C-alpha cells in the first residue's frame, strides 16, 4: 500500500546562487516570486517517490540574503531537513552557505541537509577546488554539483534528502 508523507524542507543560500531557478524547473509551484520579496519566503512542493512511499517535500524557499541577520529564523521551525545552495563559480557563496548551516544548527540542532554547488554548467569558471569538496565531504556534508540549466544533480539531491528525512 502506498503511504504518503509530507516533510518541511527549507531552501537556503546567498544572493543569486540560482536557488529560484532550481525551484522553477523542478518543483510544483503556485505562488509568484513576489512572495519572496514581500513575505521573505515562497512555498513550493517537490514530490519524490521512494518505493511504495510518496514523499511531498514542502519547500520553504527563503529569500536569499547576504546580510544574514535579515533571514527570518522563525521560518526554520519544524523543518525536517534543509537544502543549502551555493554558486560554484563564487566561493564566497559557499562560505555563506556554511555559515547558514551553522546558524540552522544553532537554532534547530543537527538536521539532514543537502549542499548543492549550483551553476555546474559554467564549469570553466568553476572556482571551488576538488580539495575543498573533499574537505567538505570529510566533514560530513553531502555535497553535489548541480545545474539548474542542465538538471544535473538536482533530482538525486532531492531523492537523497527525502530518503534521509523519512528513513
Amino acid at each position: 500500500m502506498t503511504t504518503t508523507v509530507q516533510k518541511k524542507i527549507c531552501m537556503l543560500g546567498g544572493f543569486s546562487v540560482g536557488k529560484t531557478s532550481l525551484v522553477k524547473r523542478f518543483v510544483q509551484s503556485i505562488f509568484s516570486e513576489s512572495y519572496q520579496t514581500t513575505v521573505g519566503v515562497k512555498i513550493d512542493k517537490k514530490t519524490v517517490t521512494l518505493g511504495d512511499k510518496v514523499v511531498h517535500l514542502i519547500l520553504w524557499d527563503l529569500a536569499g540574503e547576504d546580510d544574514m541577520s535579515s533571514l527570518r529564523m522563525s521560518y526554520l521551525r519544524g523543518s525536517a531537513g534543509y537544502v543549502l545552495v551555493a554558486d560554484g563559480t563564487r566561493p564566497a557563496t559557499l562560505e555563506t552557505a556554511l555559515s547558514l548551516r551553522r546558524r540552522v544548527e544553532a537554532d534547530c540542532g543537527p538536521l539532514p541537509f543537502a549542499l548543492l554547488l549550483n551553476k555546474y554548467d559554467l564549469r570553466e569558471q568553476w572556482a571551488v577546488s576538488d580539495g575543498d569538496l573533499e574537505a567538505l565531504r570529510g566533514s560530513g556534508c553531502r555535497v553535489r554539483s548541480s545545474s539548474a540549466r542542465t538538471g544535473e544533480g538536482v533530482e538525486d539531491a532531492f531523492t537523497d534528502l527525502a530518503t534521509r528525512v523519512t528513513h
Partner: protein
Amino acid sequence: MTASAAETLEWLFRPRPIDSGIDRTALAGLLVELARTVEPKACVQPTGISSVDPRLEQLRDLLVGHEIEVLGRLRQVVEDPERLGVAVGRVLPAAIASSDARLGQVLAPALEKATETSIRNDPRALINILHPVIVPAIRKSIAEAIDSTFQSLNESLRQSLTWRGLRWRFEAWRTGKPFAEVVLKHTLVYQVEHVFLIHSHTGLLISHVAAADAASQDPQLVSSMLTAIQDFVRDSFKGAGQQGVDTLRLGDLRLWCEAGQFAMLAAVIRGNPPEELRDSLRSVLSRIHDERRQALESFDGDSSGLADVAAHLADCTALRQQARSARKAGFPWFVFVASVLLAGTAAGAGLWRWQVVQEQARISAEIAAEIAQEQARVRAAELERRAAEEQLWSGYLDRLRAAPGIVVTEAGERNGKFAVAGLRDPLAPDPAAILSESGVDPARVVSRWQPYQALDPVFVLRRLEASLPPPRGVRLSIAGDRIVAEGSATPLWLSRARTAARMLPAGGPQLDLSQVQNVTEGVFAKLRQTIQAREIRFNTNDSLPAPGQDAVLDQLADEIKDLTALASTMHVTAHIRLTGHADDTGPGTLNLSLSIARAGAVMALLKKRGVAADLITIGGAGQLDPLDERNSDTARSANRRVSVAVLVEDER
C-alpha cells in the same frame, strides 16, 4: 494542633522545680504496697518521710534517664525559633502533600485574606502578572465586539429604509429583541468553503475539507503559505504577541484562523459570517484537540492516522446561511414611498454621509493596497534589473577572459559601480569595444588596464609582422610554440629576419627560418650566373650588334624569360641591367653616348624577342670599365660590348 495537645507539650517542658514535685507520701505508700505483695507479712509504715531524698533522684535516673535526655534535646529545638523553623520546614512539604482536602479548606480563608491584603497594598504586582495574558484577550474581544457592532450597524442602515426593514422592525417590536439582532438573523449569508487543519509547528497540512462546489489550489502549499504569513506577521509586528492573524479578507472571501495548542484551524468563508461562527470553529478545534491530542502532538507529516478529523472539518463546511429567495411580487411601493418620506431627509443625509465615509475608507484602503503592490513590484523589478545587469556584466567578464592578450586580475562591484582591472597587450582587442557589445552601461563601469606584452604566439607573430614585414615569397605561421617562416627570400631579408629572431624574448615562441630558401642559391642562382656571363659584341663605332650576335640575343632573351618566370614563382623580382661599353679609341663623350646607344639597341632587340621592357634598365659605362685593358685590337674588340647584370628584389 488541638488545644489539649498544646497543653501536653506545655506541661512536658515546664521547668522542673528543685524538688521533684512528687507526692512523696503517696510514693512511700506505693512502695510499701509493693513490698507487701512480695512479703505479705511485712508490716512497715511509711513514716518519717523526709522531704528531700537523694535516692529518689537516683531511682528516677535509673528508670527514665534516657527519656529525660531525649526530651532535653527536643526542648532545645522547640525553644530555639530558628532550629524549630528548620525542623518544621523539613517536614512541611511532605505533610501538606499527604494531607487531605481539609487542609485546603482550612488554608483558603487565610490565603484569600493574605492575597486581598497584598493586592490592596500594591495592585501593580498583580497587574504585571496578568497583563500579558489578559490584554490580548480583551483586545481581541473588543475588536470582535466592534466588528460585530459595525456589521449590525451597516446592515441596519442598509435595511432600515426598505419594506423588509420595516417588517423586521415590526418583528423586533413584537418579539422584544433588539432590531440589530433581527437584522443580523435575516441578512448574514455565508458559506464555509474550505477548512484546513494545519500543524502549528511544521505548517504541514493535517486535513482539508472543501464544500462541494469550492475550488482551490494545492491545499498542502496553501497550508504552508498560511503558516508562513502567520510567522511573518508575528515576526514583523512584535506587539501582536503570539496571536498572529485571525482574519484576512479579500473581497467576498474571508479567512478565519483559530489557533490551538498543536494545530490551527483555517476556514475560508464566502459571504458575511456572524461572529458566532467563530465560536463554532473554536469548538470544533477544541473537540479535535480533546480527541486526538496525542496524535496531533506527535504529528510528523503522515496524516493517515488522523483521517477521522476530516469528519469534524466536514461539520464546519456544512455551516452556511443561504440567501433568502428573491423578493416576492406585489411589492407595496406606497409603503416604501411613505416610509422614505417619514424617515425624512435627515436619515437620507445620514445615510449619504455614512456612504461617503465608507467610500473614503474603501478608497484609501485600495490606494494603500495599490501603493504596497507598486512598492513590491518596484522592488521585484529592481531585483530583476540587478540580476539582468549582473548577467550582462558576467558575460562581459567572460568575453574579456576569453580574449587573448587580456588578463583580468580584479573584478567586482564597488560603490554601486562595476570595476575591472588587469593587463592588456596593445595588440589585444579593445576592452571598450567589447564592453559596448556586451550591453553593460559603460557609465557604470570603471576599468583600469596596464599594458604588457603577451607571449601568446599570435601576439608575437603580429608584433613580428609589424617589425619585419615578410615579402610575398615568405609566409609566417604558428606551429605549436614556434613561428615558422616558409618560402623564398633574398639574403637581405633573411639577414634582417635572423636579427629579429635573436631579439625575440626568451621563453616565448621562437622564429624558425630553416624553411626559407635563399634565392641567390640553387637553380635560380645558376640561371642568373649564365645570364650575367652573356655579352653582346659590336664593331668599331657601331651602335648595333655585330653580325652573328643574333643567336646570342635569342639565347639571352630565352634565358631572361625563364629567369623572370622562375622569379615570379619565388615571389622575387629580377631586374635586368644592360650596361653598354666602348673601346678607348675616340673622345670619351662620344664613347659614353655610344655605349648608352648600344645598351638601348640591345634592350630594343630583347623587347623584340618578347622580354618585358619594364624589367630592363640601361646604362652606359663609356670606355671606363674595359674588360681587357691591354692595348691591342683583340682587347678593344672584347671591350666593345653590352654586359648583363641581374638584380633580385623581394616582391612586396
